[in-house]
């Protein structure tokens, strides 16, 4: 049976990054990735000017 696009993505990313994911971990990894991507969409949907700099290190 074909997996969902996210299952396929996780399998491909795990191979590309050389990350061992046992079958029994898959559901939890997927659930976590789903939450993270949903939250990432919330952030990415916020429109900002192209000139806004990232703030990798916070200094005031």
């Amino acid at each position, binding site marked *: 049976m074909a997996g969902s696009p996210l299952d396929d993505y996780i399998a491909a990313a795990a191979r590309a990054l050389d*990350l061992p994911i046992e079958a029994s971990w898959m559901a939890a990894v997927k659930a976590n990735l789903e939450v993270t991507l949903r939250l990432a969409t919330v952030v990415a949907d916020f429109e900002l000017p192209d000139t806004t700099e990232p703030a990798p290190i916070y200094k005031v």
Partner: protein
Amino acid sequence: MADDFSWASSSDIAHAVASGQASAASVTEAALARIGKLNPVLNAFTAVTAERARAQAAKIDASGKSKLPLAGVPFAVKNLFDIAGIPTVAGSKINRSHPPAKKDSPLIARLEAAGAVLVGALNMGEYAYDFTGENVHDGASRNPHDITRMSGGSSGGSGTAVGGGMVPLALGSDTNGSIRVPSSLCGIFGLKPTYGRLSRAHSFPFVASLDHLGPFARTTRDLALSYDAMQGPDPEDAACVDRGIEPVLPLLEKGIDGLRIVTAGGYFRKGGAREAHDALDLVAKALGAREEIEIPEAARARAAAYIITCTEGAALHLDRLRNQATEFDPAVRDRLLAGAMVPSTLVVKAQIFRRWYRDHVVALFKSCDAILAPATPVTAPKLGQVNFMLDGVELPVRPNMGIYTQPISFIGLPVAAVPVPLKPLPIGVQIICAPWREDIALRIAFALEKMGVCATTQPKV
């Protein structure tokens, strides 16, 4: 009698040692005895440095250092701080095979230079990715007010040790709330300073963009005492700013006249249990804080903090995920594995948003000096509790204990967490200030303590 200091503040202990009422040695022996008696119940300590503590206490008693500001004060640190001679486990099984640390964290060194006595290392959530205080390798650090409940995480042992009367002072780390959450659940005071204020050198990291270190205590004065002793630049921490020491202790008595104090509305008024909002209302009323302001895009800030946390955490642990994945706490491992797979474009978006959010939140401090918000959405949940109800919605405990803390540490603002002694369990309130204004947060905390609104209550352990 040294045992009279079992619930004493750091300030009182230092005065007693300075006046000759007690020796550092006797206070240290009493603390070690308390730890020996209470730790089988509370599980706060993962290592006790008795020999070192006795040597330091003897040095203080013998060398005329008894007038130091923290003379003879026993303290302990979350086990992600380097302690010379023992491996820095950071709550993990994996790090137990690491070689012993070669030197102490500079914060330990600075506290000891002020006369304090390190008595051990404290339990924590694995690699600090935790809000519960539970640890699959070491067991949970228990809430001193009800040992069937969580201490909060990830600095759970720090909350337990101070709230349970084992030591008057502890250090912890706060990436998304790990000082403020245990402070709230254990009913004690905690300070998360401005990002970059205190050196993080020689501590095991989690998320470089968000990691802070800070103290826990049972009084505001003790927070100020220890914070003042730990301030100062450190070139070994890339984020630590080149800023002089700005002592807070002399300012505590200044009071709050003239300070403009407001409460956070919107996001911060949703999602919490009644106790969280009752505590906030009590504090706001005592301070005359009638105005409510909106911290813009707080929910989005929490989302961005979540993304930066799981991806930077994954980067830190990538090799361990590849080679030692079965040795992690599964709940930590599975989040980190997911974090390793988040596209970098989304991480950069989160950092770009962070810049916008920082600018807009810092601008709020043009019209106020401090913002009050709940520290946690609930009082201490039961150990092992997986879900809780917030606003009628069932949510997982582990990620959601930080809903009110994450949007603040995300941009590094200083926060004092103050305990409101509700019955049957305490809960905390955050006093959030502009960057570098720890002095204002602690002045307000001190005023609340003097009013009797905020206090640490002694549990029956």
